[in-house]
């Protein structure tokens, strides 16, 4: 999406843009804290090295030490005030959260709620009939999926290769660029037939989840969605299939264990089951609207080893 238009066809001036942002944020997460965001932030901070240059034991002048004491004191005071305010403040009635990212509390036993950013809804064109068996209906809210603490996004900016080295539309780097909008310039289109994209995580990891956005500006289901993990870049040895909805066996890659699903802005989460591997490969074979294969974004979450 163009930065200045933001679903409007005309640029917004500064004040309008700020009010637009306020309304969108209010619509997204209501009046309360965005717990999914805070959970993700906590995970990011947990991933920080225990001894970063600025936090590790170090030498310092007395002035710096005084400043550090002031900072710690200020943070403590601010925290106390915020806690007191939080206790005194009457919570407003809960709002319905359309993104369903907000959780009341993370269950202790199941780790943390996996969260990510979602693109805005963009529906264009007339959807074609989706004549596939056992089709999972489109979700109306974001999926909830719990992963072990310490799980992080591993795939952002990582190298992507494909069975179609010269995509028709877009480039392969769009698959891991972090942009999930459905518009032109945000997706890569591979030729028809069974095609794959492969993400190199650069080192082996315990993969907990693969979150996939094929295309979501038109309701459709992709055929033969198969997701595999391996340490072999050729996928000849040590291959684990974690998702397969090839209901008619046409891809000849094993029996379907999953059902076809409708693409939406919420994407689709595939359970990585902690499978160890450096490479993630995703297959598809056209979709219910046309014969082409598309990827807007793939996010691989896991725990680096």
């Amino acid at each position, binding site marked *: 999406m163009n*930065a200045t238009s933001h679903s409007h066809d005309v640029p917004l001036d500064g004040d309008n843009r700020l009010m637009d942002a306020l*309304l969108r944020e209010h619509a997204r997460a209501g009046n309360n804290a965005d717990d999914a965001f805070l959970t993700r932030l906590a995970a990011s901070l947990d991933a920080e090295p225990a001894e970063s240059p*600025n936090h590790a034991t170090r030498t310092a002048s007395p002035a710096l030490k005084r400043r*550090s004491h002031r900072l*710690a004191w200020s943070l403590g005071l601010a*925290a106390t005030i*915020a806690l007191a305010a939080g206790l005194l403040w009457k919570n407003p009635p809960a709002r319905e959260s*359309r993104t369903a990212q907000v959780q009341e509390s993370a269950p202790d036993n199941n780790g943390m709620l996996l969260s990510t950013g979602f693109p805005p809804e963009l529906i264009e064109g007339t959807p074609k009939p989706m004549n596939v068996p056992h089709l999972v209906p489109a979700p109306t809210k974001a999926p909830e999926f719990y992963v072990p603490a310490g799980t992080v996004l591993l795939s952002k900016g990582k190298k992507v290769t494909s069975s179609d080295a010269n995509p028709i539309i877009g480039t392969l780097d769009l698959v891991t660029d972090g942009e999930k909008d459905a518009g032109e310039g945000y997706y890569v289109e591979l030729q028809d037939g069974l095609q794959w994209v492969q993400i190199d995580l650069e080192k082996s990891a315990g993969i907990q989840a693969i979150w996939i956005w094929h295309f979501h500006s038109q309701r459709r289901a992709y055929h033969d969605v198969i997701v595999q993990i391996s340490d072999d870049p050729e996928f000849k040895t040590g291959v684990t299939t974690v998702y397969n909805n090839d209901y008619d066996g046409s891809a000849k890659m094993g029996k379907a264990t999953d059902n076809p699903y409708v693409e939406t802005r919420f994407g689709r989460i595939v359970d990585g089951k902690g499978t160890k591997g450096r490479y993630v490969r995703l297959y598809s074979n056209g979709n219910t609207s046309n014969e082409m294969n598309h990827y807007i974004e793939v996010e691989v979450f896991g725990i680096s080893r």
Partner: protein
Amino acid sequence: MNACRHNSFMIPDSVATPPAGRQAFAILAREHHRGLLIYARALACNEATAADLVQDAFVSAWRNLDRFDVTRDFGAWLRGIIRNKWREHLRRHAREVDVDDATLEAWEARFAQWDINRNTGHAELLDTLDDCLKHLPDPMSETVRRFYYQEEPGERIAAALGIDITTFRKRLQRARQTLRACLDRKLPTHA
């Protein structure tokens, strides 16, 4: 303590960033994140990018806590970090457009007003917005509800309301102006 260390002593983690400091930082994050998400979204016009900018800004802030001037406002400091992150983002995404300095200054003034009661995590701002939304005239209210809260495309809303797309855009613009004026009236200003 060894006399040699009087001029160059060690700051252990427990002083520079004690566990309590991490907890305090988490509370500050809770207190500021919604306002910062609004700010980043105004810059980036994209939910995912905004969340990434704020996330990265908090991590940078945590790494550089010793550079924070405690006489300054924490939110203003983080907005500065977000602006830097945004400019880094722009260098990698040439198609996106920067915001001019005058607009940034105007936003800073607006946040100075909105930040007054940030201890409640900007809840007062958002509650006041709720109230203002309830008082929008019907045609504007319907347009705002469908566009922002139900995320319907403009063309579909215009068709459903029997208006053309230009009228739809004008209605949205008028609604935002009305809401901004309402917030100005209802929110306290700096003394």
